[in-house]
């Protein structure tokens, strides 16, 4: 048993990755639709193939987490080699990584704490512009200004959170919408930050003089030009995901979920609700700011039009469609919702229309998202010792009092 499980997991990951790459690289629309279809079928089949003893799909991934994550990491590292022939698709994957970073941040707000932030693009803009201006104007290293950008976004996030924490539901969303639009309009009307033409010539990340935007060669291996950025975004994502997961599993995550379930009850229990909300705002926007800054240095050019209300909507839909409050889910949502519209660029004109249709359809078919909300397991009730049977865990959504 212990041999087949890792094998199945690795085989599954290789197949899915292979299909994804094939999907990306085929030029012909029909073929890519075919790969997509095969991929979906494969995913369904795989969910059963990796089921646990009781039939829960994907259970093996949970029990053999080490293999799953390890295999995934190795495969992800190999992607630039597979996409050697197409720097364009590698760039799209980098973009997917940026969106994934943003989604992780937004998930803290929307998914965990039910704070529907519809102006997230504004916060990422602050991270992007701060980092760009610092490195471009003051000559700061992008490695440093990246974090400053994140902190700036976090600071603004908390600042916006202070008044917004008192509002609830729709009012909160409207405050964030208004904020996002104010950021957009301010950027357009400030010539100091480039106005509508944006900021160009943003210095790239570089290691020892070599820009990460150029084609790297490690030993004898020639990597395509976007590979450096790809690895960097993977690294940032790893950091973000680890932090998000740890937060989710510890007290802050619990408090946020409690907030989501019943804010008043949580308050009654003595939790400082305002502080929890501010933390959600600050942390979420921190990740968003980092993502925005990373984008600025990778593409070398940012403009207010990169950060519109529609972008905020797209980010929220990535979180919802991927699975709110599920970190793996939002990663999936971000990647899927970045890759698929790019692939179907052949539909060019119909892209946005299809997006709207898919959004509505997904909300109907699978409102809980691609990956379900994580069920918290708390106590393991030890059974009376009867052979080698494993005790059954007691599952509860949260500890909120209903």
């Amino acid at each position: 048993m212990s041999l087949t499980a890792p094998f199945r997991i690795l085989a599954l990951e290789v197949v899915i990755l292979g299909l994804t790459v094939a999907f990306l690289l085929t030029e012909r629309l029909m073929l890519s639709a075919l790969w997509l279809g095969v991929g979906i079928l494969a995913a369904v089949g795989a969910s059963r193939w990796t089921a646990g003893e009781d039939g829960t799909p994907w259970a093996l991934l949970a029990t053999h987490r080490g293999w799953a994550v390890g295999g995934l990491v190795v495969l992800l590292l190999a992607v630039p080699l597979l996409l050697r022939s197409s720097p364009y698709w590698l760039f799209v994957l980098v973009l997917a990584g940026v969106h994934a970073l943003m989604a992780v941040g937004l998930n803290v707000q929307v998914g965990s704490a039910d704070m529907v932030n519809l102006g997230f693009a504004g916060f990422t803009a602050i991270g992007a512009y701060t980092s760009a201006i610092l490195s471009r104007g003051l000559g700061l290293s992008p490695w440093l200004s990246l974090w400053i950008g994140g902190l700036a976004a976090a600071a603004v996030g908390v600042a916006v959170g202070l008044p917004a924490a008192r509002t609830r539901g729709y009012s909160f969303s409207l405050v964030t919408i208004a904020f996002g639009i104010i950021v957009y309009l301010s950027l357009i009307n400030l010539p100091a930050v480039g106005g509508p033409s944006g900021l160009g010539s943003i210095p790239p990340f570089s290691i020892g003089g070599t820009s990460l935007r150029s084609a790297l060669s490690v030993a004898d291996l020639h990597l395509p030009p976007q590979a450096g950025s790809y690895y960097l975004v993977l690294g940032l994502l790893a950091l973000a995901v680890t932090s998000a997961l740890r937060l989710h599993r510890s007290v802050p995550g619990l408090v946020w979920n409690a907030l989501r379930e019943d804010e008043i009850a949580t308050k009654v229990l003595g939790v400082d609700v305002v502080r929890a909300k501010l933390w959600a705002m600050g942390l979420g926007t921190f990740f968003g700011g980092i993502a925005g800054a990373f984008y600025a240095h990778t593409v070398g050019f940012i403009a207010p039009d990169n950060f519109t209300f529609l972008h905020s909507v797209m980010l929220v839909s990535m979180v919802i469609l991927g699975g709110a409050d599920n970190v793996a889910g939002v990663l999936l949502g971000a990647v899927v919702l970045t890759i698929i519209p790019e692939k179907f660029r052949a539909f060019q004109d119909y892209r946005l229309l299809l997006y709207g249709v898919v959004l509505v359809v997904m909300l109907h078919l699978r409102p809980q998202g691609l990956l379900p909300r994580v069920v918290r397991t708390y106590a393991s009730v030890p059974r009376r010792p009867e052979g080698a049977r494993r005790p059954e865990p007691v599952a509860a959504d949260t500890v909120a009092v209903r």
Partner: protein
Amino acid sequence: MLRRGFLVSLILIGVLALGLVPGTPAGPVEVVKIAFLGPLTGPNAPQGLGARNAFDLAIRQANASGRFPYRIEGLVLDDASDPATGRAAALKAVSDPAVVAATGHWNSPVAFATIEVFHEYRTPIIIWGAIHPDITRRGYPEVTRVAPTAEQETAVGARWVVRDLRLRRWSVVHDTTAYGTFTRDAFVGTARGFGAEILSVDGINVGDRDFSAVLTRIRSLNPEGLFFGGVVTEGALLRAQMVRLRIPAAFFSISGIFDDKFIEVATAAAAEGTLAIKPGVPLERIPTGRRFIEEYRRAGYREPYGAYGPYAYDATGIILDALRQVGPDRAKLVDAIRNIRYRGILGEITFDREGQTRLVAVTRYVVQDGKWTVWEDSEYAKGKRKIR
């Protein structure tokens, strides 16, 4: 079960591995591609589509002429007026080994984003529509431009309205897009150079329709002229509301408003007396232009070639000419294009040190009786009608 799964996975992986091996084309070049990038969707689609059609026309003619030992194919990519999309499109173009050169862009922010890519991949790109002066000032040898910049265009216009027509007191309204802001800057700079006084500068958003508040304030400043930096719809609404509010100033703008739709939206009565300049010369007046019009019509495109179709046509023509000179080699094409002497529709095109065309031909227009009339032909120029 174990063995079966194992076998299946092996087979699948094997198939995929085969599929992933990039095929290397061998043998003589059969297809050479030229990339076209422009806004085919979004608010600027009319300009992009017209330019794309002209690009397509040039390529079709090249293939039909039999002067190339290979087939020329156009790779049309949408930049959707968005820098990130444009950059992705540029990457797509340069990573296709059959693409030897590109022509692109109506929106300057998009051009700013993509020229980095073209420079990095040493692929020539000729700008047919983006008019921000700095695009050719980065020092990239790959970048050239066949259209005049906003500075060149507006400078001619300012000299006309401020110096020749002696309108000294100006209010400026502009939209908050890149186009609006740098035409504003160009006008303010050059108008002041001719002795104008700028009374006010106000920005409006694309999509706004209500300018009564800002116009009411402008009226109290008593300007002799109102300069608008922006495009057709807002310009037309502004003009109509200005007339409704009885502001007796002249209304001047550059090519952004030059469209029959301007007159339609503002109504012919309100649009009367609007001044505009447009890059280029009326095509009907020159034999090369008439030929282009006829060939375009015969090709049966759905969209009109617009203000920038001829530029896209010439840009493609330059690429094709350079192709014939040095063959499908990106590096050689960069030099060939920079140093070219090309007989385009509008005249002979050469590029200066920055890659900017030396050919600046603009025409001045006024709206007379519901139609755009060349200034020199109009009754205004002859003194029979007054602007204000």
